[in-house]
């Protein structure tokens, strides 16, 4: 058993060349596009969580902030597989189907934008309050404080958090493979679990691990390189 698990069977080569290139592409595609939309929704939400706070630069009604917080916490506490099922009607409405890579992107975005909102909130809260005070003393509008102080000053931390989001979404795409999504997750499930060709599953997993490593390494490098507080960069 363990032998067959790792032995390379030439018969599998056909399966690999036929399925892997498109599966890898689908995984990367789903990960990056979903993350993009999650950032598009999550970053502005994270900004609102910070500036709309009662001590923030643009306090919003506290009931509104409470609702926002509850929604974000709720979405974050639902396990991804369950979320996929729950949002199926919405997925069908938007994409027209609930199977395939594009369909999987709907739950992927819904699962990750609340995470992005929270980590963005964290990044922005790290910005020195004295810098905000400085900007206010110079007559900056709240919008200028957001675009010229809060976001630019937290770029390194945002890059780190976007990297983590990407790796999270990548692992979710693999999970989505179990429920009709495409990509490496689907390959692993349909050959490894359904047809007992374990070596294919192992290769798919190894590829996923490599993808996570690459994304994490590049992301960490970028985050460090962008940080002008670190003397080594200057």
């Amino acid at each position, binding site marked *: 058993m363990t032998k067959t698990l790792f032995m390379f069977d030439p018969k599998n080569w056909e399966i690999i060349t036929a399925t892997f290139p498109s599966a890898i592409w689908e995984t990367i595609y789903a990960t990056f596009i979903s993350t993009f939309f999650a950032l598009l929704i999550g970053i502005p939400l994270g900004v609102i969580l910070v500036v709309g706070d009662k001590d923030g630069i643009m306090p919003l009604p506290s009931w509104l902030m409470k609702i926002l917080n509850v929604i974000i916490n709720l979405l974050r506490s639902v396990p991804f597989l369950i979320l996929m099922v729950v949002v199926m009607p919405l997925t069908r409405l938007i994409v027209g189907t609930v199977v395939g890579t594009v369909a999987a992107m709907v739950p992927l975005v819904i699962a990750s934008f609340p995470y992005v909102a929270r980590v963005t909130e964290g990044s922005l809260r790290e910005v*020195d309050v004295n810098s905000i005070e400085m900007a206010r003393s110079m007559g900056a509008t709240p919008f200028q404080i957001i675009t010229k102080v809060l976001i630019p000053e937290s770029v390194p931390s945002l890059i780190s958090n976007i990297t983590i989001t990407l790796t999270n979404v990548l692992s979710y795409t693999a999970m989505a493979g179990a429920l009709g999504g495409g990509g490496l997750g689907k390959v692993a499930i349909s050959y490894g679990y359904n047809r007992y060709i374990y070596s294919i599953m192992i290769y798919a997993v190894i590829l996923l691990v490599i993808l996570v490593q690459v994304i994490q390494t590049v992301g960490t490098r970028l985050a460090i390189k962008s940080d002008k507080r670190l003397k080594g960069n200057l």
Partner: protein
Amino acid sequence: MIEIKNISKKFRTEGGDIYALKDVSLNIADGDVYGIIGVSGAGKSTLVRCINMLEKPSEGTVCIDGVDMSLLSEKQLREKRKEIAMIFQGFNLLMQRNCLKNVCFPMELAGINRVEAEKKAIKLLELVGLKDKAYSYPSQLSGGQKQRVAIARALANDPKLLLCDEATSALDPTTTNQILELIREINQKLNITVIVITHQMNVVESICRHVAILDNGVVAEKGPVGEVFSHPKSEATKRLVFPEGSADNLRKSEPDEHIIRLVFNGAKATNTPMIARLALEKGIEANITYASTKSVDDKVYGYMLLGIKRDSNIIAETISYFMQMPDVYAEEVFLDD
């Protein structure tokens, strides 16, 4: 002209209401360098933040050039703030921007185009002596250099008023002196009114013309610096001039002694102690009643209180003896007024 009229500031906290300022009134003339001194927690920062309305006074008004700041809309207030620059203890530079871009920041806020802003920023960096650091990042600068960049930034929108909240408190004595020199220069060359918040006497003595002593949210005393410090009337002022109860000791031990206060702002100390030299050269005997000095790179900073038991001629002679030394300031202090 800045008219602060009867302002009070109440903070609501869990432990009850705190009055950070109580009925504070000050008039600051155009072109003045006005010091506001007090211990930590006296309400200095609150007062200076009320001037540009970062903090709204609970009562009273702040008028700048006849404009009541509390009547301005948010938008008008933001415009007004562009004329009121501020520098801080922690410099508050944007860490992800280089110095040039930091100086450009207020001009960006005001919508000045990039090329023009950068041209002006270079000029301002030249004014503060850091043109060669334009493309360096704040993390590459020393504290004094950071404050210079912050000063250049503060000047970017041609302010009429410069607020300095403990601007030198994070700096060593030598750098403090250089920054104060720069602020003095700005006041004189650009005719910008300066308000200096500090807890250090020497800061007020080296650049301010007027001073207000803030004690527990109340103005204990105000007036020209020389007058206030040489005739301390309030308890708060006496605590500043005679630290650690030295006034009481003086009064008890030597009732007929005259007191001279020496201030060292980077005076070159020689091997011969100054007091010994005074005795040798002038034949004047002086007791050191209190001394709080420190030496940095063979320069002395701090104060000394001297007791001299003679008539007013000798006092005058002693004062002029010390006054002719560079970076030393001497004045007679009167215990009971």
